[in-house]
């Protein structure tokens, strides 16, 4: 990692950590919580789909399972409302990963394009089940134990836990990228059959990656449920969730470390801000459509790759210019 990119990471982290200190308005801190939740999800989604090239469009299952784990356990265990409920966040992630194992075992039997369709189909099975089952509260949803923190700082603990999830997802992605396991996923992305022929156990690598990616998404769902206090099957098992995180990763740069974070930061905060400012929750869809046309036209590999290419090209040009100048100088001396 170069000096510049390290500086950008540190600055980004400091800015995110100071945000609720500087911007104290609860409405804006709430936007921050939602944005961080999406950043964690997009980063984690990218750790499987970006690395292997298997585009999963059923991650809302993990988000919903995480949310329902939080809701059902806190309600049925009669938990005292408060910070202790944060302990259920990792549990939500664990349950999401366990649920993902049989799903992955089925969906990963097929290759790429078919995989996309199968994940969507499995998602709808879960959504319909959640809407119709009794224990999910069906369409009227579930109300979690009410946390009576003061309105002016209610959002702040959630903000920092969500920031923790983002850091967790990012570090996990970076570690995976440096491990053999990550190299195997990238090899699968480039040529799965060739990887198999070089001894990579492609099936177990894909399944492990898939289940691991669902862990953070499940945790994010659990945190969301605790944050909003009431969940509905149609909102936690939401097909737009998958479209959103996939688009965030594409916008920022699929397969890169910073790309999904940046994509989610831009899109989710923008969407929340539009909803808050114009109290129109579908206006963003039109703007997003236009934005994506521009991205696909001008930087099809995403913002991060676009900028990185510019920087390396400029550095190469400057180096060439210096070398040329030295040659001229040497020539004139001789």
């Amino acid at each position, binding site marked *: 990692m170069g000096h510049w990119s390290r500086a950008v990471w540190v600055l980004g982290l400091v800015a995110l950590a100071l945000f609720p200190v500087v911007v104290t308005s609860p409405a804006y801190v709430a936007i921050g919580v939602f944005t961080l939740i999406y950043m964690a999800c997009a980063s984690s989604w990218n750790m499987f789909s970006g690395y292997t090239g298997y585009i999963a469009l059923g991650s809302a299952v993990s988000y919903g399972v995480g949310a329902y784990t939080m809701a059902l356990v806190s309600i049925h265990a009669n938990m005292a409302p408060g910070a202790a409920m944060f302990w259920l966040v990792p549990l939500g992630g664990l349950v999401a990963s366990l649920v993902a194992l049989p799903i992955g075992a089925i969906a990963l039997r097929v290759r790429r394009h078919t995989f996309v369709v199968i994940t969507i189909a499995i998602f709808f099975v879960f959504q319909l089940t959640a809407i119709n089952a009794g224990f999910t509260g069906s369409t009227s949803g579930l109300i979690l134990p009410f946390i009576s923190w003061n309105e002016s700082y209610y959002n702040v603990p959630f903000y920092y836990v969500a920031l923790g999830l983002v850091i967790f997802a990012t570090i996990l992605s970076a570690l*995976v990228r*440096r*491990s*053999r*396991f*990550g*190299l*195997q996923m*990238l*090899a699968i*992305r*480039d*040529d799965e*059959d*060739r*990887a*198999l*022929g*070089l*001894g*990579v*156990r*492609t099936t*177990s*690598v894909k399944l*492990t990656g898939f289940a691991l990616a669902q862990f953070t998404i499940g945790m994010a769902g659990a945190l969301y449920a605790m944050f909003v206090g009431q969940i509905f099957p149609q909102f936690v098992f939401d097909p737009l969730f998958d479209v959103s995180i996939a688009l965030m990763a594409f916008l920022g740069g699929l397969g890169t470390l910073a790309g999904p974070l940046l994509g989610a930061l831009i899109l989710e905060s923008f969407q929340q801000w539009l909803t808050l400012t114009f109290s129109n929750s579908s206006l963003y869809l039109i703007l997003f459509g236009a934005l994506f046309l521009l991205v696909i036209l001008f930087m099809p590999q995403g913002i991060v790759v676009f900028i990185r290419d510019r920087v390396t090209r400029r550095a190469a040009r400057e180096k060439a210019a210096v070398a040329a100048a030295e040659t001229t100088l040497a020539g004139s001396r001789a």
Partner: protein
Amino acid sequence: MPILSVSGVSRAFGGVQALQDCSLEVAEGSIAGLIGPNGSGKTTLFNVVTGYVRADQGTVRFREKEITGLKPNQVFALGIGRTFQLTRIFERLSVLENMLVATQRREGWLRGLTRSKSSPEEVSTALELLDFVGIAGLAELQAGALSYGQRKLLELAYVLVADPQVILLDEPAGGVNLTLINRIAEKIRALNAQGKTFLIVEHNMEFVMSLCDRVTVMHQGSDLVSGAPEEVRRDPRVLDAYLGGGDDELEEVAGG
């Protein structure tokens, strides 16, 4: 006892009988050639041996062990490496990372998660092999930027990472210039001298005839003739096979 033996293998794709009762033996430490008109089943035979395609009938043995129906990763782990006719490399990984993908066969499932991409020994082995095929200077380059000939060399190098006993090469001399063909032939001889066994599919007759100890000619999915290069070249059935196939390789076979 042959190191690799194929006996009575058949395989149909829909109505096309790609392999029909095909048998073949490769002696340990030899360089065996596999020739035949296009569509005679050479690549399908490679696919059956390396586990990419299942045989409808027949068996494949590696030494004493039957390997029919094993998966490609299992066949590779036993010590049979292969290259592909159209080179297949990991284009968005660096040349060195391409090599490292092949180093990972001896590990358990969970160890891969916790270990870093490579140990220093693995990197130095990979660099030695890249140096052996002559592309060590390109180790940090993205593999997608390699020329066709360099890709062929990389493919040969990463098959060698796992130190296989048998190496199957699918048209190693196809589409590369004469200098490189000679370099590849030289590498094959050097590896053979170290005891590695080769089975080579190739259309370049000069390459096959000069390199191989024994040549098998395939025709319509079966093994037609096997023998020393000179015998095979003079066998009238071989000429018939190429003539019958309407293939323009006749002159090459006859003229050598």
